[in-house]
């Protein structure tokens, strides 16, 4: 059954969109990530214009993170103070990101920048996660190996503006979460992702936050950053397709339910290992598209202001 997407201005199969939403929802339920990093490339792959894919995806990230936060909030796994500091950075970041987005679109390099940022982040995060989870699996087999120190003091801990985060049991410079939020905010606008796949490892390894609080807290700030991105994209670029976003959410809600149930049967490091493989695979697929000679060297864009 075909449906016409009014903002993307194209017809697409409803079942295909529901299926995509379901698949990504399943994975996000399984791995506890938003799944935006998978959805945007998939949407572009099925022919949705990149600008509409990124902006509508930001809209679907709102829905995904709201439902995620609610689950974590009930278990008390959200550090609101940390979330608010991350958010302050995130709002500034997304503001700059949306501006950068329209500049890049004007000079015709937006597709390249989207692809490059995806390749860079997916392959580096995927690689790090793969190494970490393989290490964890090996340690599991040899439990006698020595443990790391809980806190290692590096230059990061010498930054000014220290702030106490009671729930996370942390005393670190506010510049750290501010900067992290800012960076993820920019990426959120450029890539249409919540940024969980960067935020979560950064909070664990850079900030040293307790793992139980990380997902809930990052989701909490993602809601607001995604709201900001979604609003700015709709307002400045008119690229948010409600119909597209709604169908994706519908599929994702159902998929996430199955993903969570399935995930309960797998062990943590196995899950992280699988996610690492998935992230790496998407990164490699996108990288090949950049280096393989295109089918046609030329592409068309309808110039702005020409109407029609």
């Amino acid at each position, binding site marked *: 059954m*075909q*449906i*016409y997407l*009014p*903002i993307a*201005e*194209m*017809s697409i199969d409803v079942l295909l969109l529901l299926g995509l939403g379901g698949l990504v929802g399943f994975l996000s339920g399984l791995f506890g990530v938003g799944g935006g990093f998978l959805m945007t490339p998939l949407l572009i792959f099925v022919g949705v214009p990149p600008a509409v894919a990124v902006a509508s995806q930001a*809209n*679907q990230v*709102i*829905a*995904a*993170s*709201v*439902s995620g936060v*609610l*689950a974590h909030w009930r278990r008390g796994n959200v550090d609101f103070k940390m979330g608010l500091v991350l958010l302050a950075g995130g709002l500034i970041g997304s503001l700059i990101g949306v501006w950068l987005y329209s500049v890049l679109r004007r000079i*015709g*390099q937006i*597709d*390249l920048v989207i692809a*490059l940022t995806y390749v860079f982040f997916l392959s580096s995060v995927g690689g790090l996660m793969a190494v970490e989870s393989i290490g964890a699996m090996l340690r599991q087999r040899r439990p006698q190996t020595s443990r790391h120190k809980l806190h290692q003091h590096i230059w990061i801990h010498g930054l000014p503006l220290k702030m106490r985060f009671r729930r996370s049991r942390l005393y670190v410079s506010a510049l750290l979460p501010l900067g992290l939020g800012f960076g993820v905010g920019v990426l959120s606008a450029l890539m249409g992702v919540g940024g969980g796949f960067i935020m979560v490892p950064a909070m664990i390894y850079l900030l040293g936050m307790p793992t139980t609080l990380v997902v809930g807290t990052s989701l909490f700030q993602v809601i607001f950053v995604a*709201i900001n991105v*979604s*609003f*700015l*994209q*709709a*307002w*400045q670029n*008119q690229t*948010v397709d*409600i*119909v597209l*976003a*709604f169908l994706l*959410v*519908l599929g994702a*809600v159902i998929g996430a*339910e199955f993903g969570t149930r399935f995930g309960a049967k797998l062990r943590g490091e196995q899950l992280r290992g699988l996610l690492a493989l998935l992230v790496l695979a998407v990164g490699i697929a996108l990288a090949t598209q*950049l*280096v*393989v*000679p*295109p089918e*046609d*060297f*030329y*592409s*068309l*864009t*309808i*110039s702005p*202001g*020409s*109407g*029609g």
Partner: protein
Amino acid sequence: MRASLLVLAVLAWVASVAGGRIAVAASLVADLSDHLIAITTGFTGTDVLLFGAKEGPGEVVMIVRGPIGAISVRKKSRIAGIWMNTDRVTFSNVPSFYTVASSALLADIAPPSVLARHQIGFDQLKLQAPPNVEPDRLRDFRAALIRRQQRAGLFMREVGEVSFLGNTLFRSTVHFPANVPVGVYLVEVLLLQDRNVTGAQTTPLIISKVGFGAELFDFAHQRAALYGLIAILIALVSGWLPHILLRKA
């Protein structure tokens, strides 16, 4: 031949009622099966029938043009192993849709000067580029524009057919794909006799979004901020609602 009788009846009606639309010469009458194509939520493309009658011998050519606009053609080349857009030429008066159909081989029925005057065929299509573009580069970008538009189904791949029913009646169809741009299209029908245009008629065809999709599109562009807020509200509710439902279940 009930169909052709019907066509005749319709033509007679068109000739009597819509007199204003029938221009220049009375030797040619033509009309479309639809003057408005509505792009609804379920739109997957459509065919429009052109039918008409001519007086005496001659060949018929139909040209369909979409709204004129500017299109930028970008060229990728490899820099440091990565393919990126490096060159661009903007053509300022490109029809967003272009097809030609003819009852005979174009070269046989009209000299190049006539084809040029009516912009019949890709060789004659006037696409305006900035004056500083070198001829070779212009040729490549122009060919690329036509090729990409053909692949998108918006430019014809080859000249279509206008078929005759007897000596006076003719018909042809135009296919509009799902990605067809909205706006006012012009359908030009020419009658050629002795390698000259002796009759011409231009009929407008409007393609526009209607219903829910159209309202949403207009809303998103005219009240962008409000649209953004509503989009957020829908996302918030659709993230929160299943949570409530699942908790109860």
